[in-house]
């Protein structure tokens, strides 16, 4: 529920789609909090992105790759049995798990590798949590014949073995990160250290809509193809816009990609679902930075963070490696504060239940990340009328999570 003050703030805004400002801020959030060594590069990147954006050839090249390489547009699928079972709103899945490499991550990587090539960079680095982004980066590096270094937490390497094998097959060199808890935040620290060291020839493909400006903006723009397609597809299918959008939030790239084209459609309710892990009341037992964190500065931007009172960052926890990050993209922090998007959460158990529900109802095994979104759809749909419409971003497929899920459910494989 929006409070009175949030409503007042909301009514003063003509558009929610104009950010960030020239310094990279979405209200209080965002910015460029990086070491001086990186500043010239980040300013260059901003310029290069502006130039690319104004160049029809860049868009044509990206569009060609979407169509012929990753298989866009991804379908918008009416989940009939699930709709029937929940007895409320019609449920549509945006099938971004059908993209080449199995998730929405390829949308961003194709855009950024084209940008890296325009900038004359010859080496690519990236961080990865679940490995979906790492696989997508390794894929575009193979395609464009560029050397690729992936930083991945040692803990994540263990729980995401299939993606580790894929990255290796694709020719990426994988650097296990043992500092901290060996998860996504530590991988990002290590990637930043590599970047500071090799700034002259290296392009850093950040995988989520976070990091220093202009990353949150450019990742959002590359992912917004999700929401733009949904607008067209739902108009074709239903002749009107949906009543609600739902997506999971780790860093929040799939979510901002779905949400952004709809932010100014006031009648579309928007829900982001964070990972509540063992529960929001369990200290350091969840990864819900907006529902259980406070504003701070990490990895180049100000945003909601999981942290203690001394400003030390907590590791957080989620069964989903892709959501196991103590921060969130700054635009989400802003959308939360102004009340445009409602951020809720789902626990590990909620997500596991939803994963099984979807698998049995629709014959689709979702990744653990969108299973969090699904869990909220299960709560939301029955409360809505049968002529209303929900679109949920099914942003990744579950193959990578089979071991984790089997272990959690006590299955032997």
């Amino acid at each position: 529920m929006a409070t009175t003050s949030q409503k007042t703030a909301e009514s003063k805004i003509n558009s929610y789609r104009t950010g960030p400002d020239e310094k990279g801020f979405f209200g209080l959030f965002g910015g460029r909090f990086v070491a001086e060594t990186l500043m010239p590069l980040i300013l260059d990147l901003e310029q290069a992105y502006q130039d690319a954006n104004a160049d029809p050839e860049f868009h044509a090249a990206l569009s060609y790759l979407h169509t012929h390489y990753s298989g866009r547009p991804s379908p918008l699928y009416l989940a009939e049995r699930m709709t029937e079972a929940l007895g409320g709103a019609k449920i549509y899945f945006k099938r971004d798990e059908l993209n080449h490499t199995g998730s929405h991550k390829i949308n961003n990587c194709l855009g950024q590798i084209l940008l890296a090539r325009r900038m004359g960079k010859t080496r690519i680095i990236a961080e990865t949590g679940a490995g979906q982004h790492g696989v997508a980066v390794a894929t575009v590096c193979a395609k464009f014949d560029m050397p690729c270094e992936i930083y991945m937490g040692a803990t994540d390497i263990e729980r995401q073995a299939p993606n580790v094998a894929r990255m290796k097959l694709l020719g990426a060199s994988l650097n296990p990160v043992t500092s901290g808890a060996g998860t996504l935040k530590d991988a990002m620290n290590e990637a930043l250290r590599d970047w500071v060291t090799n700034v002259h020839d290296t392009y850093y493909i950040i995988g989520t809509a976070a990091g220093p400006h202009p990353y949150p903006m450019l990742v959002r723009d590359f992912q917004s193809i999700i929401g733009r397609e949904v607008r067209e597809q739902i108009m074709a299918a239903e002749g009107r816009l949906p009543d609600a959008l739902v997506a999971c939030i780790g860093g929040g790239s799939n979510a901002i990609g779905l949400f952004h084209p709809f932010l100014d459609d006031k009648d579309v309710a928007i829900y982001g679902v964070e990972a509540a892990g063992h529960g929001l009341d369990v200290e350091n037992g969840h990864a819900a930075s907006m529902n259980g964190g406070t504003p701070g500065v990490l990895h180049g931007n100000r945003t909601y963070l999981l942290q203690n009172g001394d400003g030390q960052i907590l590791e957080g926890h989620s069964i989903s490696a892709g959501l196991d990050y103590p921060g969130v993209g700054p635009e989400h922090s802003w959308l939360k504060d102004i009340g445009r998007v409602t951020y809720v959460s789902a626990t590990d158990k909620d997500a596991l239940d939803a994963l099984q529900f979807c698998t049995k109802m629709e014959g689709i095994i979702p990744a653990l990340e969108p299973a969090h979104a699904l869990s909220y759809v299960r709560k939301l749909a029955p409360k809505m009328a049968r002529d209303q419409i929900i679109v949920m971003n099914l942003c990744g497929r579950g193959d990578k999570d089979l071991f984790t899920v089997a272990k959690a459910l006590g299955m032997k494989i």
Partner: protein
Amino acid sequence: MKQETRIDRRFRALKAEGRAALVTFVTAGDPDLETSRQILFGLPGAGADIIELGMPFSDPMADGPAIQASSLRALQAGHDMHKTLAMVAEFRQRDTDTPIVLMGYYNPIYVYPGKKFLDDAVKAGVDGLIVVDLPPEADDELCLPAMERGLNFIRLATPTTDAKRLPAVLSNTSGFVYYVSITGITGSAAPDVNSVQKQVARIRQSTKLPVAVGFGVRTATQAREIAAGADGVVVGSALVTAIKDSLGPKGDATGKTVSGVLDLVKSLAVALRS
């Protein structure tokens, strides 16, 4: 900044002496509060001219393994920002001349919160701040309020700071300019002395502020070579490595911890005076 600060005075005195400043970095609270106090209190006597005191942070993105580990040791021993400021306050009662610069990352300052941190830092006797992830574009966050309170805000210039970028870096910088001698993290490969001297000369054409050089300076010989072309030399990773090397099997301080660090500082101080 109009009024002369403790840092300005120290550089002026050293200039008269005709030598470069030895700037030493240790992390506050490493490996534990009591040992860290003893190290801090012993630094001026061992020959440190300016003390950089690291504010521990869980995610030190610009630091190499040595300083990352020192930050972690301090945090595991229960250190926090209040204890860092209390250490400085205690130091200041014993020593009114040696400048102390707090160095670290923005988040622990931001959540303190920032303005209160600045007030408490001034009260404790802090002279300057180096905040790695606050570039000039973010001056209104902390740099300008710090200057209003008479604190020096010291900026890092790097090999990527070209002629176009340098004026932005130098604006609102005071106390000294910290030249990062390599593109990379702290404690990396040793910098090339000739190229460092060229870069320092380049920076000096644009500012009257003293220039101190750091990142990768480990030995007395290196320190002496770098000092020949600069106003100060910063040694950090080598000192925190000395702390690490002195620790017992369980990671606790031993009888050699304080003396190990201070002996290394003494040898560096001798090198800069020879």
